[in-house]
């Protein structure tokens, strides 16, 4: 192993890791928004919204994320959507993970005991008041862990945007392999940095999960 080379390129990998972190954070935030909207649609009283939610989930989960990102980035300009690689990457990844988060959030909401809705409605609270004050606070506690699983997948999924030349960890490894012919070392650095990002995130989620549990 060429440690000398690894030390020399390391700063560039750190910069790339920062891009991966940015991609992950933006994707997590936008993904949560997509997931919340998706779950609201899936749980709507109106068949129309339920159908939209179900279609969203089944299309996204039924096709490779890479194809979704390619359609957005390469196919977009053909229908008048012109995005830089980073934006296309964030949007593509968010819409993708949002479908999985839709199911996570919906699952947490429907697993709150039915008696909770009945008790609140019996007191005269509206459906929305009940959702906001009774159901969602309980569902939120149930969804921290499974959303953590989604976020773990999302971080690894950011590697896909190397394919549209976003200069993140995977792309950076490939670029240095082109000039150094040392794939083992280069992918090792990338892998190690991914692992650190994922480990720290995992600890954060475990902390949050402990913090939200009911006394």
């Amino acid at each position, binding site marked *: 192993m060429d440690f000398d080379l690894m030390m020399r390129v390391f700063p560039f990998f750190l910069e790339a890791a920062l891009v991966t972190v940015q991609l992950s954070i933006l994707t997590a935030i936008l993904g949560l928004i997509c997931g919340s909207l998706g779950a609201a649609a899936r749980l709507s009283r109106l068949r129309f919204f339920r159908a939209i939610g179900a279609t969203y989930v089944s299309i996204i989960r039924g096709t490779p994320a890479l194809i979704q990102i390619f359609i957005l980035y390469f196919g977009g300009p053909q229908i008048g959507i012109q995005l830089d690689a980073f934006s296309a990457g964030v949007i593509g990844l968010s819409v993708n993970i949002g479908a999985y988060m839709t199911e996570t959030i919906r699952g947490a909401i429907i697993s709150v005991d039915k*008696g909770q809705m009945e008790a609140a409605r019996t007191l005269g609270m509206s459906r929305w008041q009940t959702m906001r004050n009774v159901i969602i606070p309980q569902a939120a506690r149930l969804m921290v862990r499974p959303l953590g699983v989604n976020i773990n997948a999302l971080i690894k999924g950011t590697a896909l945007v190397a394919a549209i030349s976003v200069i993140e960890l995977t792309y950076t490894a490939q670029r240095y392999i082109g000039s150094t012919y040392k794939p083992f070392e280069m992918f090792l650095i990338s892998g190690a940095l991914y692992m650190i990002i994922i480990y720290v995130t995992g600890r954060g989620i475990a902390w949050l999960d402990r913090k939200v549990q*009911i006394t």
Partner: protein
Amino acid sequence: MSDAPFIEIRNAAKSFGALEVLKDINLTVEKGQIVAIIGPSGSGKSTLLRAINELDPLTSGEVWLDGVQINKDLPFRQYEKHVNQVRQDIGMVFQHFNLFPHLTVRGNITLAPKMLKGLSDKEVNELAEEQLKRVGMLERIDYYPSQLSGGQKQRVAIARALAMKPKVMLFDEATSALDPELVEEVNLVMKQLAEEHMTMIIVTHEMGFAQDVCDRVLFMDQGYVVEEGSPDVVFRNPTQDRTKDFLKKHLQGQN
């Protein structure tokens, strides 16, 4: 209006799909009356109770409370507004308490009055304390439901319903999920409400309690009210065979 019954259920029928659960039920309850509903499992007792506050809306028939029709046929938004309003007058207590686990006892009781009655924090706190005193749970006001026994949970659930100042209280087997030694503390609270002349409809498997506390007993079987009358009549001199069979099974070891 003044001579109309306080609660009136007229020609009530209810189906879940093809299953007819309530069949032409008529029932009137006067203000301050305490009515027990007994009957075998699956006879429709819960469904009837839940029809009164529109948790399980009737397929046909009418439910009236104090001159207001509960089960009005309205467009969705108006209907929701209407039921949210009338449900404030109908307290309900469930077998499994259904306290809100993420809120303290205080939070459980103040949530709905704060939101629906426009009371200040001070007012709802006083309300919570007053209602908790009534059920003997004041000293647990800052506990979470998970820190209470079943009997205590149910008393808090009763206080939560009472805090809305309902015109009637519905109890669906309020003591069935409790350990035997915890039943009495809940029964005592219900007896106290009876002495305060709260109008109550009580679904119960406890024949002794029904006999002691209730003015009237309804025996239901297969979606019908088979027999009704004063506890003395229904328990001691039932006229219907189905009532006799049921009581034979359920009074064993009780009297």
